[in-house]
C-alpha cells in the first residue's frame, strides 16, 4: 500500500479509528455539511410531527380562501381549493422526503453495488451488465412505472421501485467510468496481492477514490425525484390526493403560475431547500471520504 508510506506534512496518526469513524469525524468538523444535515433533520422532524404542528387541516377546503395571497393568517397563502399552503407543505414533507430520500437511497445503493461490480471485474461481467443497462435505459421511465404498477400493484414500495429504477443506470455508468481510471493503479494491485478480500478492496480502496461524481450526481438528482413522484399518482403509484406532496402541489399550481405564483413558489422552495441541504451534506461527505485529504 504505497500511498500510506507517503511523507505527509502533518501526520495525525495517533487517532486509531476505523475508516467510518474517521469519515464521521471529518464530517462533524465541516460546518457547511453540518448545517445541511441539521436542516435536513429538522425537515424530517417536521415531517414526523406534522400531524400535530400544522396550523390548519391540510385537506380543509374553503371557497372564501381560494388563491388567497400570503398573509398573517395564511403565511404561504392558499391554493385553488382554498387550502392552507403552509400546512400542506409541512404535511407534504412526509411523502416527498420519504419518497425522494428512499428512492435516491435505493438507486444509489443498487447503482454503487452494480457499478463497483462491473468496474472491478470488468470483462464479461462488465459487458453483460452494461448491455442489460442499455436495454433498461432504453425503456421510457413512465412506461416502466406503469408496468410496475400494473404487475406489482400500487403501494409505497412499488413507488420507490419505480422512482429508483431510473437513477440506477446513471450511477452505474458514472462509477464504472471513474473506477476504470483507478482500477489499474498500483495500490489496488497491492491491496489485492496482500490478500485483502475483494469486498475490502472495493469498499476501502476503490470506492473512496471513485465515488465523488456519484455523490455529486445523487445529491443533485433528489429534486428531480421529488418532482417525478408527482407524475406517478396518475398511474396508481405515488400519493393520492388530498394527501399533499410537493411535486403534486407544484404541478397542481402549474397552470396558475403566472396568475397566482405563490401556488408554485412555496413548494418549489421546499424542494430547493432539500436539494440545497443534500448538496451541502454531499459535498462534505465527499471531502470527508476523499483519501487524498486524509491527515
Amino acid at each position, binding site marked *: 500500500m504505497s500511498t500510506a508510506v507517503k511523507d505527509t506534512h502533518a501526520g495525525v496518526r495517533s487517532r486509531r479509528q476505523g475508516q467510518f469513524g474517521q469519515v464521521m469525524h471529518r464530517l462533524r468538523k465541516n460546518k457547511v455539511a453540518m448545517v445541511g444535515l441539521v436542516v435536513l433533520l429538522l425537515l424530517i422532524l417536521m415531517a414526523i410531527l406534522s400531524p400535530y404542528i400544522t396550523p390548519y387541516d391540510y385537506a380543509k377546503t374553503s371557497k372564501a380562501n381560494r388563491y388567497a395571497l400570503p398573509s398573517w393568517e395564511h403565511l404561504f397563502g392558499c391554493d385553488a381549493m382554498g387550502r392552507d399552503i403552509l400546512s400542506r407543505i409541512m404535511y407534504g414533507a412526509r411523502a416527498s422526503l420519504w419518497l425522494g430520500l428512499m428512492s435516491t437511497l435505493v438507486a444509489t445503493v443498487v447503482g454503487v453495488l452494480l457499478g463497483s461490480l462491473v468496474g472491478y471485474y*470488468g470483462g464479461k461481467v462488465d*459487458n453483460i451488465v452494461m448491455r442489460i443497462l442499455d436495454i433498461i435505459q432504453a425503456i*421510457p421511465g*413512465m412506461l416502466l412505472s406503469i408496468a410496475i404498477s400494473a404487475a406489482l400493484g400500487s403501494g409505497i414500495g412499488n413507488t420507490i421501485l419505480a422512482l429508483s429504477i431510473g437513477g440506477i443506470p446513471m450511477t452505474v455508468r458514472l462509477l464504472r467510468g471513474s473506477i476504470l481510471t483507478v482500477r489499474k493503479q498500483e495500490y489496488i494491485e497491492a491491496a489485492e496481492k496482500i490478500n485483502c478480500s475483494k469486498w475490502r478492496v472495493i469498499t476501502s480502496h476503490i470506492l473512496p477514490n471513485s465515488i465523488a461524481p456519484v455523490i*455529486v450526481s445523487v445529491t*443533485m438528482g433528489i429534486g428531480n425525484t421529488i418532482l417525478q413522484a408527482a407524475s406517478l399518482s396518475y398511474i396508481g403509484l405515488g400519493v393520492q390526493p388530498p394527501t399533499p406532496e410537493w411535486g403534486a402541489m407544484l404541478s397542481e399550481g402549474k397552470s396558475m*403560475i403566472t396568475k397566482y405564483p405563490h401556488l408554485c413558489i412555496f413548494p418549489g422552495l421546499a424542494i430547493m431547500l432539500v*436539494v440545497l441541504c443534500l448538496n451541502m451534506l454531499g459535498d462534505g461527505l465527499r471531502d470527508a471520504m*476523499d483519501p487524498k485529504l486524509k491527515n
Partner: protein
Amino acid sequence: MIRYIGKRLLWMIPVMLGIAILIFSIMYICPGDPASSLLGPSASAVELAAKREEMGLNDPYIVRLGRYLYQTFIKFDLGTSYKFGTSVFAGLMERMQYTLVIALLCMALQVFVGTPLGIMAATHHNGVWDRVSMFLALVGVSIPAFWLALMLVLIFAVNLGWLPTSGVSNGLASFILPCIANSFAGIASQARHTRSSMLEVIRSDYIVTAKAKGLSRRTVLFKHALPNALIPIITIVGNGMGMMLGGTVIIENVFAIPGVGRYMTDAINSRDYPVVMGGVLILGLIFSLIMLLVDIVYAFVDPRIKAQYEGRKGKK
C-alpha cells in the same frame, strides 16, 4: 481498438432484440386501451371491443410478439402510427430534427458555459466565485424546468415581445427560450461535476510535478488538470446527450415543439403501440451508439482505459 468497436457493434444485436422483447412485454402488461383513444370518448364499450379485435389486440402474447419481431427485424418495418396514420420511422425522424437542434444547442451551452463555471469554482476553491457559481448551480438544478421556461416566456415573449412564446415557425428564434430553459439544469450539473472533478485532480501529485516544472498556472490548469478532470465528465455529457435525444418532454410541451419526447409521451398515453415500440427501439439504438461513442472517447483520452479494452481483446 477496431476489434473492440466491432465487438460492441455486434453486441448491439442482442441488445436491440432485448429491447424489442422487453418493450413488447411491457406494453403487453401495461393496462390501457389503444382503441379508446382511437375512437374517442363517444365510442361505446361494444364498439371498443370490436375495434380491439380488429386491431389484433386480443391475440395471444406469443403470436403478437412473433408478428412484431418478424415485422421489425426481418422486414425492417416499424409499422404505422395508430394516431398519425404515418410511418413510425418517418414520424420519428421528422420530430428528431427539432429534438436534435435542441439537444445540440443545449449540450453546447452545457459544455461551454458549465465547464468554465466549474473550472472557475475549482480554481477559486472556497472563494467568492466558488460560492457564487455553486449557489447558482444549486438553484439551477432545483428550479423546475417548466417554471423557468414559463418565467422566460413571460419576460421575453409576453412583456418584451422579443421572442415567440411557443412553436417552431420562427426559425432559430423559436429555439432560444427552450434551449436556455432546458440547459439550465445541465449547465448547473456540468459546473458542479467539473468543479468536483477538478478539485480532485488539482490535488494530484502530477499537478505538483507540473507546477514544479515551472509551467504557468494556465498551462498546468488547461494542459494537465483539465484533460484529466474531464474524463468522468464524458459520461455525464454522453448520458445527457442520449437522454436529450430521447426528447425533453417538459420543454417540448411548454414550448409546443413537436419533438421526439412529446411524440413518445403522447404515444405512451394513448397506447399507440407501434410508435412506442418503434420509438423505443430507435432511441435505444441511438442511445447505445452514443454510449459506445462515450467509451471510445474514453479510450481516446485515457490511454489506461484504452489499454484495458485492448487487453481484453488480447485475452480472447
